[in-house]
């Protein structure tokens, strides 16, 4: 579904992504792992078209649509969850009836059925779930979730992981990026561990990892806690 | 952008630019033209003053905004040209032997007045046009006589820019006091209908004048005569043109302050202007033969035998 071929992105002197290649198959949950500054967010922005690679190509299968949930989502605080989804539905060009229907369905999918509460009264976890819900508007083929569990408390993390698991079960293809390796291990099928914009190691949950957890592989690859 | 959007955007931009250019001030602004028309409409009032051959239509009127001069010719045709002065000026300008009235555009005068706490309407602008037109008239017909007023004395630019006039009275409070009482006497006399009382006033005036003149330098006396003749008479015309438009404005802005001491050369505007008003009380036909070769007060003395 998604093929990244030797992409490079430089910002002045700094090379954020350096000849990165990987691919994501339909129905997979794929993780981008690495420390801060590894190039994960830059990679996501290039997949979304917000940045353009200086070299290399990013290819999405024909007709593939994307949905995106940012790491620190901001929504107009005076809107309710439903109004927020309807707003982004309208921005996407969806018809009124369709966006109403989808808003209701998605809110119930992410557990935000209460339609009267304004976003200003939402907890961080609720906002993250609303962000995932808006990324699902229009039923995209590929979901890109940037740090979906960042800043959440234990309960919030559990709810988010459960949500991603539900999306996976529903057949969604997901690329996500997270620091929390335990979360990744629970929901992801494959992933790459990045450093300085390149792939250090590829990880596959179904492969023989020599009995090592993802955390152990990560520490071995990166070279200890940085 | 799509081709259609580019075309629509370009069309909107071109339309707005065209509208802006088409409506721009290639000529005189509406409000300045209205001032010109107002001034022209006062010709009859100017005729009634009695200065022989004094016609506004003899002189082009130029409105300057600092960037351009907008010339209104007597046939009402207009022309834009580069400014002849780079600074703000209301003056009579010698354009190759033919005099032109130059006044700042009304909006500029309005702003200046606003800064000084006043207002500037169409009537003010029209009266100013007549003031400067009178200078054109003086210089066209009586230039030699006017130059004769300062003959034998060379004044620097500073003197004419009021330095000498200011210094003279700043250091001489007695002279200032005397001049103030002269102005008061003239203002009273300008309203006086009893000719005997008027004569008494003028005898008193002459006495003070002789006393005061001994206290100021010869240069200051010559400049006083020059200003009183040239500017005083133009101020007289300006006052009358204002009066023709609004008695109330005349009372408020001229009549009430006529007898008061003013700084700079403005005191001589009042002095000369008031002398003209006083002479009107004695003989309103004096303008038939007045040739600007001497101050009006001398004619008053002659007529009253003072």
């Amino acid at each position, binding site marked *: 579904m998604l093929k990244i071929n030797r992409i490079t992105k430089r910002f002045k002197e700094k090379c954020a992504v350096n000849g990165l290649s990987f691919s994501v198959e339909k129905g997979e949950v794929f993780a981008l792992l690495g420390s801060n500054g590894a190039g994960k967010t830059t990679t996501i922005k290039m997949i979304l078209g917000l940045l353009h690679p200086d070299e290399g190509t990013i290819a999405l299968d024909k007709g593939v649509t994307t949905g995106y949930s940012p790491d620190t989502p901001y929504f107009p605080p005076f809107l309710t969850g439903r109004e927020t989804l309807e707003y982004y539905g309208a921005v996407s060009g969806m018809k009124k009836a369709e966006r109403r229907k989808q808003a209701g369905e998605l809110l119930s999918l992410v557990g935000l059925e209460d339609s009267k509460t304004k976003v200003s009264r939402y907890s961080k976890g609720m906002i993250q779930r609303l962000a995932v819900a808006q990324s699902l508007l229009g039923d995209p083929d590929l979901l890109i979730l940037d740090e979906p569990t960042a800043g959440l408390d234990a309960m919030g993390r559990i709810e988010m992981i459960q949500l991603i698991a539900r999306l996976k079960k529903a057949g969604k293809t997901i690329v996500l990026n997270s620091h929390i390796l335990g979360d990744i291990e629970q929901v992801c099928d494959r992933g790459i561990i990045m450093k300085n914009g390149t792939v250090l190691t590829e990880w596959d949950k179904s492969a023989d990892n020599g009995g090592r957890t993802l955390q152990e592989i990560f520490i071995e690859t990166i070279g200890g806690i940085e | 952008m799509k081709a259609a959007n580019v075309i629509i955007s370009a069309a909107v*931009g071109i339309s*707005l630019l065209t509208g802006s250019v088409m409506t721009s001030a290639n000529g005189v602004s509406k409000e300045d033209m209205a001032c010109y028309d107002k001034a022209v409409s006062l010709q009859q009032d100017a005729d009634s003053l009695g200065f022989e051959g004094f016609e506004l239509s003899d002189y082009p009127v130029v409105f300057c905004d600092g960037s351009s001069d907008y010339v209104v010719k007597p046939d009402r045709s207009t022309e834009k040209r580069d400014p002849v002065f780079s*600074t*703000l000026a209301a003056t009579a300008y010698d354009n190759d032997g033919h005099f032109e009235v130059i006044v700042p555009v009304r909006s500029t005068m309005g702003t200046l007045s606003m800064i000084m706490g006043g207002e500037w309407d169409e009537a003010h602008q029209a009266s100013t046009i007549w003031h400067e037109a009178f200078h054109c008239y003086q210089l066209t017909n009586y230039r030699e006589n006017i130059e004769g007023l300062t003959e034998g004395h060379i004044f620097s630019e500073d003197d004419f820019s009021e330095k000498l006039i200011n210094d003279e009275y700043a250091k001489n409070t007695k002279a200032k006091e005397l001049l103030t009482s002269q102005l008061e006497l003239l203002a009273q006399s300008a309203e006086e209908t009893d000719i005997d009382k008027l004569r008494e006033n003028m005898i008193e005036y002459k006495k003070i004048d002789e006393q005061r003149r001994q206290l100021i330098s010869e240069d200051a006396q010559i400049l006083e005569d020059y200003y009183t003749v040239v500017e005083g008479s133009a101020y007289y015309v300006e006052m009358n043109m204002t009066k023709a438009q609004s008695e109330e404005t005349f009372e408020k802005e001229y009549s009430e302050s006529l007898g008061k001491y003013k700084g700079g050369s403005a005191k001589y505007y009042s002095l000369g202007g008031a002398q003209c008003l006083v002479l009107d009380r004695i003989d309103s036909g004096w303008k038939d033969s007045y040739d600007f070769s001497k101050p009006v007060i001398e004619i008053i003395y002659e007529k009253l035998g003072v």
Partner: protein
Amino acid sequence: MIAATAIREKIRKKIFIAVMVITAVLTLLLSTGSTTITVGGEPLTGFGIMMSVVFTVMHAVSCVMAVVISLGTIPAEYERRTHHLILTRGVSQARYHGQLTLANVGASLISHAVFMAGAAVYMISQGHASDLHRLLCAYVISGISIAAVSCLSSALSLTMGKLPAGLIAGTVTLAGITAPLLKTAQSMAGGFAGKLLGAALFVLPDLNSIQSAAAKLITGGKTEMHPIFTGLFYTYIFVMIIMIYKRKADKE
């Protein structure tokens, strides 16, 4: 939809509401006669003169408000990364920035309308209720200068940092409001300074002329079309900059 939501957000900001309320109260005080305007120590009287002064003051305040309202909208969208959720939905930068600018103009015109409501109260209190339609026309005309200031501030905030954008927008607005003073200064200065001021006046939008054209409508005078066309042309230029300029979506 983007514009409508952005306007809702703008007019809900506490600072916006506080400034509007304070200014509206001041305007009402001014126009209901509790305060007397004096120029050069002389109290101003007469409906026409008072109305012109009130309108001039309100127009100036509205212009300043338009700068304040419009300067932060686009940078805030990028700081909060709201643009990610819009631009990834196939919305072009031109459309996005255009919608945000529309929101700025809308919010600025709403603020201007509040001041005009004060003027309307004054007109009614002075027995000129039948002339309210003139005030409405004056609002539309003076709205051109508010829109121009708002679009300028939006364009500057899109193309440079908030501080330089604010300084430039503030200076241009101040110069536009005080254009007659600058013209007079130019006439009086002459020489190089005069030429410099002349060049500045040629380039900068003459907001005062638009206000003056609008004010003439209230007092029943004939309005001039040139400042209206010129104001619209400036607005067009600023809008074109907004539509054409490509901002780097992300720097990291």
